[in-house]
């Protein structure tokens, strides 16, 4: 006996509407109590919920729908809910799962009827799912078993939808099917003009389920065997049908259909599964389903309580987290605003800003960002100054500069703040300032901080703090801001100091150009004769030369010796020549030193009476050898009565020879005779010897240097300008003297005085 439902068409329309409006299926509270605790774990991965999601049709549908909407592609052949879930973000997952409708039940048995239906359907779906999976695994050709599982899970969503939207009708339909041993489809058609497979299909399509699942939902009551022959993709429907059969045979859950289930064998054949395999699946089914039931908590005694508890815990957790995030947010916000402050401040500073300008800017920004009350700022005064420049910012539009007197008894910068950062109560330290300013700064709220440039305080900023509780919070920021501002102001101050200094400096120099001394003019007249250098300097030279000689000769010996050794073993002619060159030059260097030494400390003269003509003759010959000229053109004029001179003949001969060769060399082009004359010099007990040439002569400067050792006016090839110096020296140690007169292009005359006694 069954009641006929009011107006089938009306019902059908109602169903359509209801179906269209259905956003999602709802789950049971016991299930919720299982998944809720998991989502409040920190750092949870979406895949920890996989096992629950894949056991609950409502959840599974919801998530598959989400996955499709997100555009996450489902790979062919390897359907894996876990992988797909991991592609969602944690937040998406959490939000979705929390938004799933939960069917409330009471712990009492009142709503048991409805509850029972849904639970039964869930269990039935689970059974079909497990079964479908096993079947798919055994089927040949192989099918995606996970996909089959899902298809099985969702095959009766149509029924779930009916149950959800029209629970009473559902109960009626089920009861009728049970009593008349019909398939629920028939009853549904009768009453609703539509059956759960079509509803299911519509919903599955609406919720963007994978195609194969849609097919399975739609066709699982049809002639799948026949369909399979035409449409191989419909095999999944066959699997689900077979699974449905088996589940009903095992009497697991509420399937809603009470007709005899279709024979399993034909379907099994299509899938190439043997009956033994079927038996095995059948055998294992109950156990598998039991496991899933346990997982979902479907048999929990007091689902409502459990669910309430779970919800409370979750809510509390989230509330906590929210509070934490909120705090964090606040901190970050204040930090970023701090950066904004610094940014703004620095942008307003240009290289030419004076320190006080920057300070003004700072005061304004400070008030703005730290939302303080009135702000006043002053810089450390220079030592001598009695006046302080103070910037006061009362509000954003009012900014003034005042001049106050620096305090007499204390320093303008509180001592304790000279080198360190502290937040102090302003009135304890700068009352003198407030008095002069005549502006009311709230005693209780005004703080002051130093502006540090490096580690030195260069200014003070005082401000009314509006939120005293925030002092700790802001301390770090005050410090940073104050330091940055302090450094910039400090630099501006330095710049100013330097400018002042430069100006002062420039002033000093703009005074009296006449004050600069001029060098004395070069004297044009040169004395005609030159004195020979004094004995003292020569002695010093002698000592130095000796020292130098010793020092230099050792390295020269090494150079020379090594070059010789190398030359002995060297086959290459060119290289051998080079090595010999090295040796030669080392020797030459040594000789230069020797010359210097001789010059400095010539051998002791051994004076013997010497006759002039003889001496001159020898000198000429020696000169000839020196200059490589066989016959020098010399005219000699010796007075007959010239006396003998008491000198070391060798030395003087050498000296005269040197002078003669100089004379020879002074002739650039035409050689004219050199004149040598000698006569007595009565007054000085000496003989005067004169050597004259008409060569190129010497200019004043050259003359001055003529008798300096190593000086040579010859153009190229220095040839050791020792000659004249040597001559002078020799003459000197023989107690004689020498003087030179010369005019450019006219010639040179050398007078030598030699002692005759």
């Amino acid at each position, binding site marked *: 006996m069954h009641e006929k439902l009011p107006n089938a068409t009306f019902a059908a329309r109602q169903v359509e509407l209801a179906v269209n409006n259905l956003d999602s299926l709802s789950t049971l509270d016991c299930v919720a109590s299982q998944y809720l605790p998991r989502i409040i774990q920190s750092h949870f991965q979406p895949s920890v919920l996989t096992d629950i999601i894949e056991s609950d049709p409502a959840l599974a549908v919801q998530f598959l729908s989400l996955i499709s909407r997100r555009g996450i592609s489902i790979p062919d052949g390897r359907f894996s809910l876990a992988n797909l879930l991991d592609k969602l973000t944690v937040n998406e997952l959490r939000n979705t799962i929390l938004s799933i409708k939960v069917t409330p039940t009471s712990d009492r048995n009142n709503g048991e009827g409805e509850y029972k239906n849904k639970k039964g359907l869930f269990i039935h779906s689970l059974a079909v799912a497990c079964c479908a999976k096993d079947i798919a695994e055994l089927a040949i050709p192989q099918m995606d078993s996970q996909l089959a599982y899902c298809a099985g899970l969702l095959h009766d969503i149509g029924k779930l939808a009916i149950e959800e939207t029209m629970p009473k009708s559902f109960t009626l339909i089920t009861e009728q099917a049970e009593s008349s041993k019909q398939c629920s489809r028939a009853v549904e058609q009768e009453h609703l003009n539509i059956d759960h497979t079509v509803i299911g299909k519509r919903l599955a399509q609406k919720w963007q389920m994978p195609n194969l699942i849609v097919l399975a939902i739609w066709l699982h009551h049809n002639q799948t065997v026949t369909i399979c022959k035409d449409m191989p993709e419909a095999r999944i429907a066959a699997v689900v049908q077979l699974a449905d059969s088996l589940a009903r045979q095992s009497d697991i859950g509420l399937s809603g259909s009470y007709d005899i289930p279709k024979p399993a064998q034909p379907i099994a054949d299509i899938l190439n599964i043997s009956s033994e395999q079927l038996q095995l699946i059948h055998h294992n089914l109950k156990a598998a389903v039991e496991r899933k039931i346990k997982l979902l908590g479907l048999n929990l005694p007091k689902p409502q309580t459990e669910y309430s508890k779970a919800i409370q815990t979750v809510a509390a957790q989230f509330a906590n987290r929210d509070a934490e995030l909120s705090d964090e947010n606040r901190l970050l916000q204040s930090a970023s605003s701090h950066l904004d402050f610094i940014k703004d401040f620095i942008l307003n500073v240009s290289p030419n800003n004076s320190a006080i300008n920057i300070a003004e800017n700072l005061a304004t920004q400070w008030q703005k960002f730290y939302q303080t009350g009135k702000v006043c700022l002053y810089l450390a005064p220079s030592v001598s100054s009695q006046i302080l420049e103070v910037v006061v910012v009362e509000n954003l539009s009012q900014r003034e500069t005042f001049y106050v007197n620096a305090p007499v008894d204390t320093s303008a910068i509180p001592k304790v703040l000279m080198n360190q950062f502290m937040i102090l109560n302003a009135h304890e330290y700068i009352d003198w300032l407030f008095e002069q300013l005549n502006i009311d700064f709230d005693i209780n709220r005004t703080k002051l901080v130093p502006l540090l440039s490096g580690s030195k305080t260069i200014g003070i900023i005082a401000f009314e703090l509006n939120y005293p509780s925030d002092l700790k919070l802001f301390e770090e920021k005050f410090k940073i801001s104050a330091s940055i501002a302090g450094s910039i102001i400090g630099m501006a101050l330095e710049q100013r100091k330097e400018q002042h200094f430069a100006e002062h400096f420039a002033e000093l120099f703009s005074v009296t150009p006449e004050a600069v001394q001029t060098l004395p003019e070069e004297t044009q007249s040169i004395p005609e004769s030159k004195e020979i250098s004094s004995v003292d300097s020569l002695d010093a030279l002698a000592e130095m030369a000796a020292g130098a000689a010793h020092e230099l000769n050792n390295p020269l010996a090494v*150079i020379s*010796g090594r070059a010789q050794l190398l030359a002995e073993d060297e086959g290459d002619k060119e290289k051998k020549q080079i090595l010999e060159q090295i040796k030669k030059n080392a020797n030459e260097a040594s000789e230069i030193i020797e010359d210097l030494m001789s010059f400095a400390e010539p051998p002791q003269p051994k004076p013997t009476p010497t006759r002039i003509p003889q001496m001159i003759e020898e000198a000429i010959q020696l000169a000839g050898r020196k200059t490589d000229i066989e016959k020098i053109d010399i005219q000699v004029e010796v007075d007959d009565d010239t006396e003998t001179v008491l000198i070391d003949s060798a030395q003087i001969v050498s000296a005269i020879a040197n002078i003669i060769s100089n004379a020879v060399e002074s002739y650039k082009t035409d050689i004219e005779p050199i004149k040598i004359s000698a006569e007595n010099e009565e007054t000085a007990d000496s003989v005067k010897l004169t050597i004259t040439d008409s060569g190129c002569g010497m200019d004043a400067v050259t003359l001055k240097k003529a008798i300096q050792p190593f000086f040579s006016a010859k153009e190229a090839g220095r040839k050791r300008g020792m000659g004249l110096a040597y001559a002078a020296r020799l003459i000197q140690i023989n107690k004689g003297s020498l003087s030179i007169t010369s005019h450019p292009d006219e010639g040179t005359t050398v007078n030598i005085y030699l002692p005759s006694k």
Partner: protein
Amino acid sequence: MKDLFTTGEAAEICRVSQQTIIRCFDAGRLEGFRVPGSRFRRIPRQSLVKFMKENKIPLDSIESGKRKVLIVDDDAEIVELLMDVLDKDGRFELKTASSGYEAGMATERFQPELILLDYMLPDVNGNIVCQTIKKNPQFENIKIIIISGVVKQEEIAQLLKSGAEDFIRKPFDINELINKITAVLQMK
């Protein structure tokens, strides 16, 4: 002491066959010359020593007959230079000293035949060293050659009087030095 060797003599000294010596000579690995107008090869002592050193042939058989020379100079590089020069020559057995004091000790121990003495030593004047050595009857026969960079004419005469055989300046010509040494030691 022999200055020139025939291939046979060289072979004996090196303990190799004469053919080997000839081959080395012809290949240029052993320097020498041919007696002009004949096919005979002659090997100067220096080349033989060099050859033996190059081929790591022990030098004992040629060692005997070396003259003992003590080199005294405080400049390490000069000492090294002199050692290299005399060592290359091959006729000398060498020891060194770098101060008057060391020179004294070395003379005692080493009993050199010749001392190459630098005039300017850190602790004592070369002059004094000369005199001291000569005064000692033990060392009567030791010959001394003074080498120096700083000596004046007169001082040279003075040195020769205090017992030095000869004098050579720094920088020196190697051949000149060897000649003086061989002359003083009456080597051929």
